[in-house]
């Protein structure tokens, strides 16, 4: 039996490559997500520079198309998703009072597969350019006949990173269902856990059709499948259905965790419990269900017929109701509270009106005949950036400022934080509000330029300037992170915000086993309950004993690498004169992947135990 000593004497790098600790994986997700966010953000800036004036020739149409595609794809799959996963990973086990997730190994696997998938997508730049058919990759434009290698990278990169996301999601579901501390019933779970659960379920049901769709596109591009070519009996609309069956739930996958974060931050800084908790849970479930029933609203102009369009329009409008419930519950959480405005709360509270602005344009889009006007114009671009930035990004920023002390042991600088917030907020409205009007006066989306004399110059210029202000805000955030790392006071208390949920009952920094004794939960907002009704500490639900911990493993990394190699080999099949034959590369990838799985399956790994004395020692140190 291995003991705790086995973890010593390892290099830092090795430690991070092999870690299965959910807190460290959260940090990895955070870093990877931030890097991808900055990358995609820079692409957006390039796009805005190109659109700053009429008939600008900073970028060619081809490059511009590659940039929009990569911007959209990276932002949704490789920036927003991992950032959300970062918080889910860090917070959910703590909030439900668990020592770890259900499958620590799978958790690490999910991260590395996602990461290598993202890498595969990104290396497309070095092999003749990125994908250029938009993040929606509509066929025939994305099919073998009209698109180059870039799309092979898109297809395989997303396929790989999708697998990573899928296995992580399964892990979260099982964690939340099976690993809750005693007394933590489903209806006592913090809303962030609820949204985490629902989102993971959405991932399981939405990423699988995506995998199927990507497989079809891959087969079309690499093996000559005829799914989309009308002359061969195929159909081009098929892809759009499959994509949006995934694509619409995907947008809720992104926004629900942001709702969750907001539902944590607003009560914490209003010092009031979440208004209408039950209704909030219910609304989340309804949104998730309806999210699967509305995808055709992206296809109103495809010409599916009036019955189809009407049905899906009504279903789409229906989503406004549960979302409205959430909005008003947040407002009434603040109502009658005692609100502290720091950066986290600024972001969280301003989320509410901003999101409503994006939401109502969504409902406008759902009016089918009027969508014939809006569709594929800048009005839609404005709609989703309002929701995504006003919703997801503000939510993530709120989460960052809120959980940062727990994650890194010090707060972010407040002055810089507030500067960032205002820059971001102003820049954001400047960039995107005006785009509504641009769409209405006839600017389609995904255009790399527009002609002079159509009245679009000024508005585009304003929009571009706004995007720079937003960029500056993100720059301030980056500066803040570096600055605070050196100049901020260490947090020594458990609970710097005087918050409500279980994660704040753990010591800072958190020991690797999270809780020396699993806590006994007695109420919703258990930590707040103990502070008010108890003695300010969590009651233990079990005696102190040896603590069982999982072993680290390099296999997740190797499997990720294997899938990367495999995917790359598949892309090579479409390359002209490769140095090594593609099947060799594919073979290597397959062997790495399945070999590691075989090893994992054959070697029984029961983890190790931290002996009681050591637990006691650690507990003394941190308190």
């Amino acid at each position, binding site marked *: 039996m291995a003991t705790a000593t086995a973890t010593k004497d390892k290099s830092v790098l090795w430690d991070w490559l092999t870690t299965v600790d959910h807190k460290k994986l959260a940090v990895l997700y955070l870093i990877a997500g931030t890097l991808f966010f900055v990358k995609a953000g820079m692409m957006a800036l390039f796009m805005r520079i190109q659109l700053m004036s009429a008939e600008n020739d900073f970028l060619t149409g081809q490059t511009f198309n590659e940039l929009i595609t990569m911007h959209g794809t990276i932002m949704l799959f490789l920036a927003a998703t991992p950032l959300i996963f970062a918080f889910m990973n860090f917070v959910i086990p703590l909030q439900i009072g668990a020592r770890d997730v259900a499958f620590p190994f799978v958790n690490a696997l999910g991260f590395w597969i996602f990461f290598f998938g993202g890498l595969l997508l990104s290396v497309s730049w070095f092999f003749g350019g990125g994908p250029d058919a938009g993040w929606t990759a509509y066929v025939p434009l994305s099919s073998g006949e009209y698109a180059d290698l870039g799309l092979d990278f898109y297809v395989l990169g997303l396929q790989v990173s999708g697998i990573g996301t899928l296995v992580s999601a399964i892990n979260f579901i099982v964690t939340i269902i099976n690993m809750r501390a005693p007394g933590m019933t489903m209806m006592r779970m913090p809303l962030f856990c609820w949204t985490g659960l629902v989102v993971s379920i959405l991932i399981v049901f939405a990423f*699988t059709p995506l995998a199927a769709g990507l497989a079809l596109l891959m087969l079309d591009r690499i093996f000559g499948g*005829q799914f989309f070519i009308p002359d061969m009996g195929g159909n081009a609309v098929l892809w759009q259905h499959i994509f949006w069956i995934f694509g619409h739930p995907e947008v809720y996958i992104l926004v629900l965790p942001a709702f969750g974060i907001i539902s944590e931050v607003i009560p914490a800084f209003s010092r009031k419990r979440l208004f209408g908790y039950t209704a909030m849970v219910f609304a989340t479930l309804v949104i998730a269900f309806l999210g699967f029933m509305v995808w055709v609203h992206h296809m109103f102009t495809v010409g599916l017929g009036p019955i189809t369009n009407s049905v899906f329009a009504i279903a789409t409008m229906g989503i406004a109701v549960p979302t409205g419930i959430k909005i008003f519950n947040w407002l009434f959480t603040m109502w009658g509270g005692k609100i502290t405005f720091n950066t986290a709360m600024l972001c969280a509270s301003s989320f509410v009106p901003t999101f409503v602005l994006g939401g109502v344009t969504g409902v406008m889009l759902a009016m089918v005949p009027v969508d014939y006007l809006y569709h594929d114009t800048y009005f839609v671009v404005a709609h989703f950036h309002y929701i995504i930035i006003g919703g997801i990004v503000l939510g993530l920023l709120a989460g960052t400022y809120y959980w940062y002390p727990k994650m890194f042991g010090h707060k972010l600088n407040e002055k810089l934080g507030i500067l960032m917030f205002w820059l971001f907020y102003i820049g954001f409205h400047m960039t995107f509000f005006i785009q509504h009007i641009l769409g209405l006066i006839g600017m389609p989306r995904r255009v790399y330029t527009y002609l002079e004399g159509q009245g679009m110059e000024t508005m585009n210029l304003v929009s571009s300037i706004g995007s720079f202000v937003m960029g500056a805000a993100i720059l301030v955030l980056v500066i803040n992170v570096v600055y605070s790392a050196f100049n901020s006071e260490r947090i020594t208390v458990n609970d710097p915000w005087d918050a409500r949920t279980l994660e704040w009952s753990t010591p800072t920094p958190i020991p690797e086993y999270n809780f020396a004794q699993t806590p006994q939960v007695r109420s919703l907002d258990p930590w707040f309950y103990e502070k008010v009704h108890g003695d300010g500490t969590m009651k233990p639900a079990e005696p102190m004993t040896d603590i069982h911990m999982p072993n680290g493993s390099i296999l997740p990394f190797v499997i990720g690498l294997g899938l990367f190699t495999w995917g790359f080999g598949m892309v090579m099949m479409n390359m002209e004169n490769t140095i090594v034959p593609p099947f060799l590369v594919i073979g290597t990838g397959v062997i790495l992947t399945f070999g590691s799985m*075989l090893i994992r399956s054959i070697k029984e790994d029961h983890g190790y135990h931290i002996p009681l004395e050591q637990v006691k020692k650690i507990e003394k140190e941190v308190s």
Partner: protein
Amino acid sequence: MAGSVDLSKGLPSHPEKSTLEGKNKFLGFWIFLGGETIMFATFFGTFLGLREGTAGGPSAEELFSMPLVFIMTMLLLTSSLTSVLAMFSMKKNNFKNMLVLMIVTVLLGLGFLGFEIYEFVEYVHHGLGYTTSAFASSFYTLVGLHGAHVLFGLCWITTLIIRYSRSGITLTNAPKFYVASLYWHFIDVVWVFIFTVVYLMGIGGA
């Protein structure tokens, strides 16, 4: 961890779920199957949407042979039964019996796969290549994906059989066998729809 189960009395009656790891695996796998359901539905939808699109190539009616499909169906259904019976043996701590039943399952699965490969080769000879038409592509994709699942299942179960051939039933391998058998049943369920929707409806010419 063993948790509340008293191990001194012998193998618990639900060895696959008597540890937390086992419980997690069990639930996680069901979730995965939930996802697989909708993934297969997508492929079924693709096939059904495109099955008229033969583009002048051979159509389902011309190609499919009923006896072959019938044999394949019987093989797979029977293998589903043997893997059920294997799980009963496992619960009763009858390790040898379980192994034998699992081996039979694998053999039946192999038979199925052999016929499927034969079938595909046959179709290619009759002019139904992968790129012949949308019907061909979606047929091979759907049925081939199922075949790939069968292949993966075979490799998986074989690995388990070899790895644990002399270890007896333990709280570690019981969930593994159980989950593998769930997977096998799921493959069978999918086949039920394949033989109905692809073959019988194809031959019936709806």
